[in-house]
């Protein structure tokens, strides 16, 4: 029971309290770039969730099974980025085969998932927090993806409304998105301290 409780807490913590986008500034580029329309934002969230789950668990395994026993921590970053690039390639091929319209609509953003800091960031944070159980690493990776999807969908919903409002000309585009993001962050700060 205790184990389930810990996993559940870890999940809630990474989705809401320690949301990567709002508290760690990770994944800001797609967060600003793809959040124009809700359906695309959701698709992007799903793709990132898949890659992040794969990458998070794989890098944990590589770290604990290969790098640490052999004292190869120096090559950690190179290994991480290779795993992520591979996972992205996989998703890209899968989407192109089975969901061509979605693949078309992503365009350049799909390969850019490789350089999505949320993914590499999460792998690094799992390492930094010293997560020592495989289940917890897997739950954290999946939760991070869900948290990212949540953030980008909220943002897309707001931006769809925002396109009807009268924004000062020089604030159009990225500036107003950043300011909105700031206010959203403020809202999510209410959850801080809920869980350690």
């Amino acid at each position, binding site marked *: 029971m205790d184990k389930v409780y810990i996993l559940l807490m870890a999940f809630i913590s990474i989705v809401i309290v320690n949301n990567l986008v*709002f*508290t*760690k*500034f*990770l*994944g*800001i*580029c797609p967060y*600003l770039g793809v959040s124009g329309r809700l359906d695309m934002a959701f698709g992007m969230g799903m793709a990132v969730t898949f890659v992040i789950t794969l990458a998070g668990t794989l890098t944990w395994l590589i770290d604990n099974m290969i790098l640490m026993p052999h004292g190869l921590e*120096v*090559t*950690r*970053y*190179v290994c991480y*980025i*290779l795993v992520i*690039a591979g996972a992205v390639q996989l998703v890209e091929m899968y989407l192109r085969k089975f969901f061509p319209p979605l693949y078309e609509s992503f365009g350049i953003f799909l*390969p*850019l998932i*490789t*350089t*999505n*800091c949320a*993914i*590499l*960031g999460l792998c*690094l*944070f799992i390492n*930094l927090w010293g997560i020592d159980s495989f289940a917890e690493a897997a739950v954290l990776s999946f939760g991070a993806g869900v948290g990212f999807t949540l953030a980008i969908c909220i943002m897309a919903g707001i931006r769809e409304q925002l396109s009807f409002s009268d924004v*000062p*000309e*020089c*604030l*159009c585009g*990225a*500036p*107003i*998105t*950043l*300011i909105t*993001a*700031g*206010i959203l*962050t*403020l809202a999510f*700060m209410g959850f801080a301290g809920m869980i350690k």
Partner: protein
Amino acid sequence: MANNTMTALDAVKGGLWTEVPVLRLILGMCPTLAVTAAVKPALTMGLSVLFVLVCSNIVVSLMRNLLKPHLRILMFTLTIATFVTIADLFLRAFTPQMSEVLGPYVPLIIVNCIIIARAEACASKNGIFVSAVDGIFMGIGFTIVLCILASIREVLAVGTICDIPVMWESFVPWAAMRMPVGAFITLGLMLGFVNFLTAKKS
């Protein structure tokens, strides 16, 4: 970036004004927001990016004729990851405190879009000299933006710049500026201001 043969002078101008990474291209947002709560970490971050940018630009420029189109992004990332490892180990050895403050944001330089974007747009098409100059000035432009943002936030959050108090006695610090909120809103307003200036000019 339409013309393939850019000169060193173009690179200087681009890095310092027309293509300032953060403000004009909206690239490299994550470190920009994350490390700018105070000036010192921002400066360290800027210099690390400068180092990685110059080195990766030079290496990419050296191997530009060997690159296969579908593998080039991977080659860029691997080159960058190598130099970031060097920078990270250097920081950990010589400024352990700063390395702790920056935490995972140093390795995150690997996925900083600025570096890949410069490798793609400049270094893979130009000679070593131009690439190196481009790296240096892009890095300087990035560092300057980081420092401006960090000074605004540090002054408002704790009333100091580089730990030297600059505000008057009764100044009440804005705690919010230290937090993510301050980062997002300050950068948003800064971008708006730059847009305002450019719109006025043209």
